[in-house]
């Protein structure tokens, strides 16, 4: 049996119990790869490819090509990348998981590692499955003999062959495309489609650039791998949903805002939010809109609020430190009841923290940040496609309830690339131009309004009785005049709260993934939906009773979660944040406060990395083994 058959996803001889594969595969170490005979072609249903190098080598580009190819082949795809936080570049990886079936996460372990340097090789060998392939640039990498028995090593002089293929002046620039050619060969990828993608990427540039890139690609593709390596073929995709689009979470979010009708926003650059503002800056003008770069985050939220006040919901956004700066103005929006969308692309905190790593530690600031009793809405997208639709929902909630709405995205979802069905544009795109129809009279903060929901009238609207409203941050009476009345402060505070209680009544109760009753319920929010669901699949395949619940509407929470929790012995809230002083992550603490249910426990981590499926299951088991820590 060739080494490749041990890959867990190989269709032939696939183990029914994926967990056992780990043990199974370690046996592969016994059968060292053999050469001789003609290379086989194995049918596979999915593959995890990790490309490791330096950011300046364009490894993101290889991953991007692979992801888009998968999208065009109706395959599912998910990527994961790390980027160095320094401009001069540095070690960086791009992992892409392509599947003919459902792909929920970027994969715990890679089937193939493509290593450009010694550090790439040494730092990432641990992420490769036992028995997996290590493709390395033999111009830079020295093989460690002790690893040879566990992994199938294939050395290719990538740097020198690239120079040879495209001429020496550009040094080894283009070796990423050469490597793409190699990968295309190994996985029998569709060459014409890849050629088209390469050509598209370089359109508008000098024609010779496209030519050189294609030369590098073909040099890689036709590089003789001899008999050393087996090749693979993806089985026909089961998914045929028609046209798919491929993009990352920040792109999906920004385009979702455009679809929602947002035409104005303001921001200040900060990783990983900057892409959103750059995209909006570039795209909005053709829709007649504008995105303004401000002097800081306070100015940004203020300018966006000015736009909202002027009649059309606007957007601002940031990450950690910038969100902190916005909180005073956020309170004004709550008090004045002016709608707004705030994107928080979370990263490791506090302070400058870990700017290019992922963390879900802004839930508290999103739900509770600011002074005073200050209710607002918080929703979190769970994958790239969801970023698009969440943006539209956020805009509509802001408009409907005259309230600021947070979109809690994060670093991992912002950069990961996924394919999803093309939206029905005519249906989802909305016109939210200001309505300036004159009104006879207007009470901006009417205490008798149903559910406390009122809407401000934008400047430009004539009010026939001549009484005009002031949008104000001072506590006010129904007309917006300042008041120090204890009664009015109580009533107005209740009004602002009631709006969101009525929203909670309308929210859909989330669906349990897996059976609605059982032993363990894994609760998650945001970008962790995929790995949590994969953990459920894996555990159930192994006979464990595990289900999951993903909470999109974090503040307010939908009603009825207690009924779901009642069906399980354990409720573990899986989050990428610290367990906190009292032993629970941020959503965990919120759920405990809300439901007073001692079986709600935390499964948290804050290492700046996304959850591995294996990690989630191990940590859940550990929780059960150690018993309930605190009641």
């Amino acid at each position, binding site marked *: 049996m060739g080494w490749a058959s041990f890959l867990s996803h190989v269709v032939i001889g696939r183990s029914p119990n994926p967990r056992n594969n780990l043990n199974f595969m370690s046996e592969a170490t016994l059968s060292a790869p053999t050469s001789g005979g003609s290379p086989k072609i194995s049918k596979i249903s999915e593959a995890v490819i990790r490309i490791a190098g330096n950011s300046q080598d364009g490894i993101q580009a290889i991953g991007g090509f692979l992801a*888009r190819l998968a*999208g065009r082949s109706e395959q599912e795809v998910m990527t994961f990348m790390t980027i160095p936080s320094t401009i001069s570049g540095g070690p960086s990886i791009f992992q892409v998981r392509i599947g003919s079936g459902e792909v929920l996460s970027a994969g715990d372990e890679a089937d193939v590692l493509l290593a450009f340097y010694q550090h790439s090789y040494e730092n990432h060998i641990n992420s490769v499955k036992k028995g997996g392939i290590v493709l390395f640039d033999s111009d830079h990498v020295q093989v460690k003999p002790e690893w040879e028995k566990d992994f199938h090593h294939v050395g290719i002089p990538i740097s020198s062959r690239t120079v040879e293929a495209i001429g020496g002046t550009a040094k080894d620039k283009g070796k990423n495309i050469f490597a793409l050619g190699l990968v295309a060969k190994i996985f029998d990828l569709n060459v014409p489609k890849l050629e088209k993608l390469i050509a598209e990427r370089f359109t508008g540039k000098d024609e010779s650039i496209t030519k050189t890139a294609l030369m590098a690609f073909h040099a890689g593709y036709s590089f003789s791998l001899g008999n050393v390596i087996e090749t693979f073929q993806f089985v026909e995709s089961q998914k045929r949903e028609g*046209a798919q*689009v491929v*993009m990352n979470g920040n*792109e999906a979010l920004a*385009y979702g805002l*455009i*679809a929602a*009708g947002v*035409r*104005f926003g*303001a921001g200040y650059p900060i990783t990983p939010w900057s892409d959103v503002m750059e995209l909006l800056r570039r795209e909005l*003008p*053709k*829709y*007649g*809109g*504008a995105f*303004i770069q*401000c*002097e800081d985050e*306070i*100015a*940004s939220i*203020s*300018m*966006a609020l*000015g*736009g909202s*006040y*002027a*009649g*059309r919901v*606007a957007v601002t956004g940031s990450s950690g430190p910038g969100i902190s700066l916005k909180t*005073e*103005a956020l309170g*004004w929006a709550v008090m004045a009841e002016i709608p707004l969308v705030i994107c928080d692309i979370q990263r490791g905190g506090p302070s400058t923290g870990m700017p290019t790593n992922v963390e879900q530690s802004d839930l508290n600031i999103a739900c509770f940040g600011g002074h005073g009793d200050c209710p607002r809405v918080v929703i979190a997208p769970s994958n790239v496609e969801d970023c698009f639709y969440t943006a539209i929902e956020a805009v509509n909630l802001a408009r409907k309830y005259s309230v600021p709405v947070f979109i809690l995205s994060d670093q991992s979802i912002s950069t990961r690339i996924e394919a999803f069905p*093309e939206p029905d*544009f*005519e249906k989802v*795109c909305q*016109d939210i*131009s*200001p309505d*300036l129809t*004159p009104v006879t009279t207007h009470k901006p903060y009417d205490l008798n309004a149903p559910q406390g929901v009122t809407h401000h009238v934008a*400047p*430009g609207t*004539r*009010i026939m009785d*001549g009484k*005009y*409203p*002031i*949008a*104000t*941050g001072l506590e006010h009476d129904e007309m917006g*005049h*300042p008041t120090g009345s204890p009664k009015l402060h109580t009533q107005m505070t209740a009004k602002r709260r009631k709006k969101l209680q009525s929203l909670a009544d309308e929210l859909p109760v989330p669906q349990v993934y897996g059976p609605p009753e059982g032993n363990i319920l894994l609760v998650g929010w945001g970008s962790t939906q995929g790995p949590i669901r994969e953990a459920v699949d894996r555990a159930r395949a192994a006979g464990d009773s595990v289900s999951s619940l993903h909470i999109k509407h974090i503040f307010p929470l939908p009603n009825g979660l207690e009924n779901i929790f009642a069906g399980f012995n354990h409720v573990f809230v899986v989050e990428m944040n610290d367990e906190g002083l009292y032993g629970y992550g941020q959503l965990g603490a919120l759920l405990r406060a809300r439901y007073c249910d001692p079986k709600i426990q935390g499964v948290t981590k804050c290492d700046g990395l996304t959850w591995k499926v294996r990690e989630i299951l191990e940590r859940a088991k550990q929780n059960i083994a150690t018993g309930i820590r605190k009641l």
Partner: protein
Amino acid sequence: MSNQTTDIPARSGNITAVPAVTPPVEERKGLTKKEIAADHPTWCPGCGDFSVLALYFKLIEKRKLWHEKITTIAGIGCSSRFPYFVQGHGAHYIHGRALPFASGVSLTRPDLHVFVFGGDGDAFSIGGNHVNHTARKNIKMTYVIMDNWVYGLTKKQTSPTSPLGFKSKTDIWGAVDQPINPMKQLISAGATFVARTTHTNPNHLLQMMEAAMDHDGFSVIECLSECVEFYEGAFDSSNPRKGGVFNPVPADHDVTDEHAAYKLADTPFPGYFGIFYKVNRPTKNKLEADINAKAMEKVKGKKDWELLKATFARMK
């Protein structure tokens, strides 16, 4: 500013164009003072801010501005209570940040006159950087800084314009920090209309407000406005009725000459009153509208959803 106001949308869905709903002007009479006045001001009797308000009313009356066409915006401070006293759309925003808020209104609504009022602390301390950036971007609006050289609302702390030696609750021995020079700061930040006036000279104040309103760009007025409660007599030497002198900017001053403007600004108190600096530089409003016009020309005739569809077609 008034003559540039657009009423007719160029294209629906465009932030720079909103539906016109105002009936033809000739059908409406100008507003009376009664119609413009809202809540009775909460200022201390004798506060200089009253005269700024009175002259804003005059401006609205004289220039036939409609309720719905003006937006009066302020931050926090005694002076910033302004919007409550004016009948018309308005916003009472947070301390120091009125300018970016007003910018959001100005950039999305070319059909409105945006006026901002506030104090010296609001402008030059907590809001200092916003003043700089709104000036450099030349965002169209009129900003009146009601300078009383003190923090009024919080009851007598040192302000960034308090002169050296001013005894406040935070400088009981007298202020020791160098005060800023508003005129110099505004000019160097890139404001395209910079004027100075005082609440004790109503005609001059109205004249400055009118000139500021007519300027196509970021127009700022520093208006000395006495705080009778915490800095009584601060501006007596600029008031002829109190034995001071009111020196208008010399008739031969070239308002486009930046150096000459700094020279005027360097004159010790009471200094000069009038327009120190005025130049024409494209507003951000116009620059953004130009970017839009260019981008929209390329996609003429396409609906918004068709544009998005075309973009997604490139992401397959």
